[in-house]
C-alpha cells in the first residue's frame, strides 16, 4: 500500500509541477505577470495605438491606463464591450476617454468610476453604458474582482475578496493549461507582446489612445453570412449574461442609484447609453426575455425623474439600425454607433 501511494503521489506531483509551471510561465490571461497591461498603457501614453493584444486583464489595463493619464478628459465612457467603440471622433468638443471593459457588471462600473476619482479625473460628463445583465444578480460576472478594492472603497463594504485564491487556483487549471501552452509558443516565437501602431485598422484588435476599441480586420470585414451564423450561435443558448434573469435586482438598483447620485453630487453630467441588440436577438428578447423590455421602461422613468439623458435603446428599430449595422448578436459596428451618436437618438 505504501509503495503504491508513494509512486502515485510522485506521479501526481510531477503532473502538478508541469501544470503549474506551464500555467505560470505561459500565463495566457496575464494573471501572474502584470507587465503586459502596463506596457499597453505606456504605448497609449506615448500617443500610439496598441495592437497585437490578447487575453489581458482588461480591468488591470484600465487601472494602468487611468493611472497613466496626466490630463483629465472632459468626457469619460464607462460600460461594457457594447460601448467600447465610442471614440473621440464622435465628439467635436472635449477630450474623450473610453474606459469600458468586456462584460461589465455594476461592480465594474462602480470600481472604474472610483478609480477615476482616486486618480483625480474630473470629467464634465460621464456616458454610462447600461446592459440588461447589469441588473441580473445571476449574471455570473466575476472579472470585476481584479479591481474589487475600488468597488469596496466606493460602497463602503468590507473587503471580502477571494480574488487571490481564485487567481492561484488557475495554476492547476486544465483549461488554463491549454491556453497557456499556446501562449508559451507565442513567447518562444517572440510574438506575445503588445505592439505600438499608428494605424487604426490592424489584423488584430487595436486600442486607440482614447481607450476605445477597433476590432481586428477579419471581424470588421465579416460577411453577412458570418454575422448571421454568429447570431444563430448565440441564439442556440441563453443570451449572454441573462441566464436566470428572473427579476431586476433591487440591491443592484440601489448600487446603481448610489453611483448616479455620487456622479451628480460631483457636478458631473450623466448620460445613460443603451446599446442595441441585433434585430433577430431583440425579437427573441421580446418573446423570451420580457424583463429586458421592463428594465428599459424602468430606466426611462428613472432617468426622466432624475433629469438624466438617455441615448440609444436595446431595441434596434428605435435607433434606426438594421442587421447590416452589427458585428454579432449584441455588438453594433462603427457605423451603428456613429449613427446612434450623431443622429442623437435620445429620449
Amino acid at each position, binding site marked *: 500500500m505504501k509503495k503504491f501511494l508513494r509512486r502515485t503521489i510522485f506521479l501526481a506531483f510531477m*503532473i502538478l509541477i508541469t501544470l503549474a509551471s506551464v500555467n505560470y510561465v505561459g500565463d495566457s490571461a496575464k494573471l501572474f505577470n502584470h507587465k503586459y497591461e502596463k506596457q499597453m498603457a505606456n504605448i497609449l501614453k506615448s500617443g500610439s495605438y496598441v495592437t497585437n493584444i490578447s487575453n489581458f486583464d482588461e480591468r488591470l489595463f484600465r487601472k494602468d491606463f487611468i493611472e497613466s493619464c496626466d490630463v483629465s478628459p472632459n468626457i469619460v465612457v464607462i460600460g461594457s464591450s457594447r460601448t467600447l467603440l465610442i471614440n473621440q471622433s464622435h465628439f467635436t468638443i472635449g477630450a474623450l476617454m473610453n474606459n469600458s471593459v468586456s462584460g461589465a457588471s455594476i461592480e465594474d462600473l462602480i470600481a472604474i468610476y472610483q478609480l477615476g476619482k482616486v486618480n483625480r479625473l474630473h470629467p464634465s460628463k460621464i456616458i454610462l453604458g447600461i446592459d440588461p445583465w447589469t441588473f441580473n444578480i445571476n449574471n455570473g460576472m466575476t472579472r470585476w474582482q481584479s479591481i474589487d478594492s475600488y468597488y469596496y472603497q466606493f460602497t463602503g463594504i468590507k473587503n471580502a475578496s477571494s480574488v487571490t485564491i481564485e487567481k492561484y487556483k488557475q495554476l492547476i487549471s486544465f483549461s488554463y493549461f491549454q491556453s497557456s501552452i499556446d501562449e508559451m509558443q507565442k513567447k518562444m516565437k517572440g510574438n506575445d507582446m503588445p505592439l505600438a501602431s499608428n494605424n487604426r485598422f490592424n489584423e488584430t484588435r487595436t486600442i486607440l489612445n482614447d481607450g476605445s476599441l477597433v476590432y481586428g480586420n477579419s471581424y470588421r470585414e465579416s460577411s453577412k453570412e458570418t454575422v448571421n451564423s454568429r447570431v444563430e450561435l448565440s441564439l442556440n443558448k441563453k443570451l449572454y449574461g441573462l441566464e436566470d434573469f428572473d427579476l431586476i435586482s433591487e440591491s443592484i438598483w440601489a448600487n446603481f442609484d448610489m453611483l448616479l447620485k455620487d456622479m451628480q453630487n460631483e457636478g458631473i453630467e450623466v448620460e445613460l447609453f443603451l446599446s442595441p441588440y441585433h434585430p433577430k436577438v431583440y425579437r427573441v428578447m421580446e418573446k423570451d426575455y420580457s424583463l429586458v423590455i421592463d428594465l428599459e421602461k424602468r430606466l426611462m422613468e428613472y432617468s426622466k425623474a432624475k433629469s438624466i439623458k438617455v441615448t440609444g435603446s436595446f431595441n434596434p428599430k428605435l435607433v434606426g439600425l438594421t442587421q447590416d449595422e452589427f458585428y454579432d448578436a449584441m455588438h453594433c459596428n462603427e457605423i451603428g454607433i456613429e449613427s446612434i451618436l450623431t443622429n442623437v437618438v435620445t429620449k
Partner: protein
Amino acid sequence: MNLGFLGFFKYFNFFIDNFTTAFSFFGSEFQTNSLDIVLPVGISFYTFQTLSYTIDVYKRKLKPTNDFIAFSAFVSFFPQLVAGPIERATHLLPQFYEKRKFEYNKAVDGLQQILWGLFKKIVIADNCAEYANQIFNNSGDYSGSTLLLGALFFTFQIYGDFSGYSDIAIGTSRLFGFDLMRNFNFPYFSRDMGEFWRRWHISLSTWFRDYLYIPLGGSRGGTWMKVRNTFIIFIVSGFWHGANWTFIIWGALNAIYFLPLLLTKNNRANLDSVAQGKYLPNVKEFFQMFLTFGLTVLAWVFFRADNVTHAITYLAEIFSSSFFTEPEILPNTVLFLIIVFVLIEWFGREGQYAIEKLTQVKSKGLRYLLYYFIAMAVIFFGNFNENEFIYFQF
C-alpha cells in the same frame, strides 16, 4: 416490483402519449395528462442488477443473502451504480463477504484503466461530442459528407463516453479489490454484427441473453421462433435505452443486421479476436470490419436523432448527391485524435483494455514516463466543458 418502478419512471409518459396519439388517429379524443416525472439517475442499471438477484434466487442459482449490508452495498456499489456494468449477484455479491486486502498489482492495473477511461471520455468522447452536437442539432444546414462526419463523431463519442465510464468504474473497483465484469471488448473491430453484440455493452447483452432470450427459447426451434426471439431481444434492448421510437428502431435495425447471420448459422463465426497475434488484418477481415462498422454508424443515427423523422432526413441527406461535396466542418485535431485512439486500441485489442500491457513494461522509468505522457495528453487535448456521461440518462 422492480420493473414497476422502471415502468412508471421511464415509460409512463411514453405509453400515455402514444395511446393519446393512437386514439386521435382513429378520430377519438382521449384526454390524458403526462406527468412531470424526474427520471432517477441510472434507474435502468440498478433495476436490472436487482432483478438478476431476484431471478437467480428464484431459479436457485443463488442462496438469498441474510447480510443486509452486503446486499445494500451490492445494489448501491458506487463505481457502477449509475451506468454499469450491470453486475450479476452471483458474481459481485460474494465479493462483499470476503475480507478486503490491498493488492498492489490490482491497484496499479486499476489506476491504469482509470487513466485510459479518462482519455476515452475527456479526450475522445467530449471532443467528438462538440462536433456531433453541432452537426446533429443543425443537420438541415449541412451537406451529406458533413452529416456522415457527424455520425462518425457520434460513433466515437458514444464508444469513448460509455466504455470510458466502464473503464473508470472497473478501475475504481479494482483499487478497492473488487472485480467487475468486462463491458466492452473493442467492438468497432468486429467482423460481423454477432461479434459486435458480443463486444458492445457486454453486461447488458448477456443479461438479456440469460434472462430473456434463453427463457424465450433462444435460437432453438423453427425459423419463426428465431426471428421472433431476435426481434424481441433487440427491440427490448433498444427500449431499455429510453422511451422513444428512435431507440426502438435502432434495436429493430440491429435485429435486421443480425438475423441473416443467425438464419445462416454464421452468428458465432467470429469468436476470437480479429488478426490474432498479427499487426494487420487480412483484406477479407478488413472489409468485414469496414462493413460492420459502417452498418453500426448508420444505426447510431437513429440512436442520436431527436426523432424518427430527423433520423430519416439525416440519412437521406447522407445518401444524396451532397455526399460528394467537401464537408463544411473538418476539425483536424479531433480527426487526428481519433486516428491515434484507433491505433492504440488496435494494438492493444488483445488485452482487457487498450493500454493493459503497459504494466508489463519492464523499465519502471519508461512506464512512468508513459503514464505521465498519457495524463498530460488528457490535460492538453481534453475538453473540460463538463459534459455528462451519455448513459447517466438511461
